[in-house]
């Protein structure tokens, strides 16, 4: 029973925080002096990008624990976190390009540091999910996706380092996505990130439960198959 009310508690928190953060982002904070109201995308863009990094971090940790303990529970957590992660990563990229379009007139600023990393993470997510779609057996799916998520996780900082190499050679203007942040804006940002973190946690709990239910169902069908019902 603990699981259920934990799920409702986290979901409730997520809803409350989301409402507050929407209020903060849209009404409470003043429009940005240079960019105007469109800057309000910034809060949820950063929040969803942050969730995609967090989700991939959890996938990495869960994969390590799976490889050590060979317990499918960790593999389910890794997979659910990756699925939620790719959704928020896609949202982050879309909002990022929308914001870039409105401020710099171009959909995608290649050299912007954060957008580049989010794109690399997005591709790694897609590869991870494609790998799981093509795995042959349950164990090989768990093993191979765990290994790939570790490789992917190691490659993120390396691609950041590599970014500095070819940045040095072709330095283009690094879009300053930060800008001056007043106190109220910082508050709105914190709330947006907190809201999304709770949202992520509740989605993760729900998603893991669904996976566990699916596996239980499979087991029952297996047994029923034996009874040649």
């Amino acid at each position, binding site marked *: 029973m603990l699981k259920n009310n934990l799920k409702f508690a986290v979901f409730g928190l997520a809803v409350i925080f989301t409402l507050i953060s929407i209020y903060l982002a849209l009404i409470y904070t003043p429009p940005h002096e240079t960019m105007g109201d469109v800057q309000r995308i910034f809060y949820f863009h950063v929040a969803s990008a942050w969730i995609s990094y967090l989700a991939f971090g959890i996938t990495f940790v869960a994969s390590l624990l799976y*490889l050590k303990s060979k317990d499918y529970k960790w593999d389910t957590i890794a997979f659910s976190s990756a699925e939620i992660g790719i959704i928020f990563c896609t949202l982050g990229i879309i909002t990022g390009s929308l914001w870039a379009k409105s401020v710099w007139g171009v959909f995608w600023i290649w050299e912007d540091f954060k957008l580049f990393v989010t794109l*690399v993470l997005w*591709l*790694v997510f*897609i*590869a991870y999910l*494609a*790998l799981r779609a*093509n*795995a*042959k057996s349950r*164990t*090989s799916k768990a*093993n*191979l996706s*765990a*290994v*790939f998520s*570790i*490789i*992917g996780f*190691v*490659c993120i900082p*390396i*691609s950041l*380092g*590599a*970014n500095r*190499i*070819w940045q040095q*050679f*072709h330095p283009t203007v690094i879009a300053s996505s930060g800008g001056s942040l007043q106190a109220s804006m910082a508050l709105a940002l914190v709330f947006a990130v907190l809201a999304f973190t709770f949202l992520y946690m509740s989605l993760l709990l729900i998603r893991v439960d669904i996976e566990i239910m699916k596996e239980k169902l499979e087991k029952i069908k297996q047994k029923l198959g034996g009874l040649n019902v």
Partner: protein
Amino acid sequence: MNAVKAIFIKELMVEFRNKQMINSYLILSLMIIASFRFAFSVIDFSLSQFASPILWISFFFGGMFSLSPIYKREIEQGTREGLLLAPISSSSIYLGKLLANLLIIFCLELFIMLIFFVFFPVGIPDIFSLITIVAIGTIGIVSLGNIISAISSNLSQSEVMLPVLLVPVLLFTVVMSSISVTSNVFAGAYLLDIMQEARFILAFDVVFIAVGYLLIDYILEN
């Protein structure tokens, strides 16, 4: 250690006998260089600017598709269990195969570079620094390509899965940095000028080899 040597020799012998990897690499790289050359010839473009990316894309895609049979072969011939049976660690299998592929692919790349300079009338840069940077980049491609090929050979549609898994992990790290360093070499830089970046990419290679060395056990044990 002699297990690594045994696998290294075995890989070379098997490869030179059935030439799966060599043929696919040469043909693919030739196609890529030719298609770039004639695709670009319709527009006026300054050659030296495009030399390094085209060279590295043919290395990248040639290497990627030629790495796909190395573990697939073992599974299809059923010899994978033979290796699992032996009292050797999977890491030595990985190292043996890695060194053998490195040797084969590096020789193929030297050959491809000849073709490249025939197709592209680019001023020949300082050969020594070009070869070192190509070698460093190839170590990265082959070491990561080896572990990803091990993963994809256990998946269905492994030929499709190899590039899908390899590009996000390899393109942004080794390939793009090698392209930028090679473009400097083409622009006339000598080894000393690019030493700092070369050491950086070498660090990536060491990380990839270490990751492969540690994780191969989980891939090969069924």
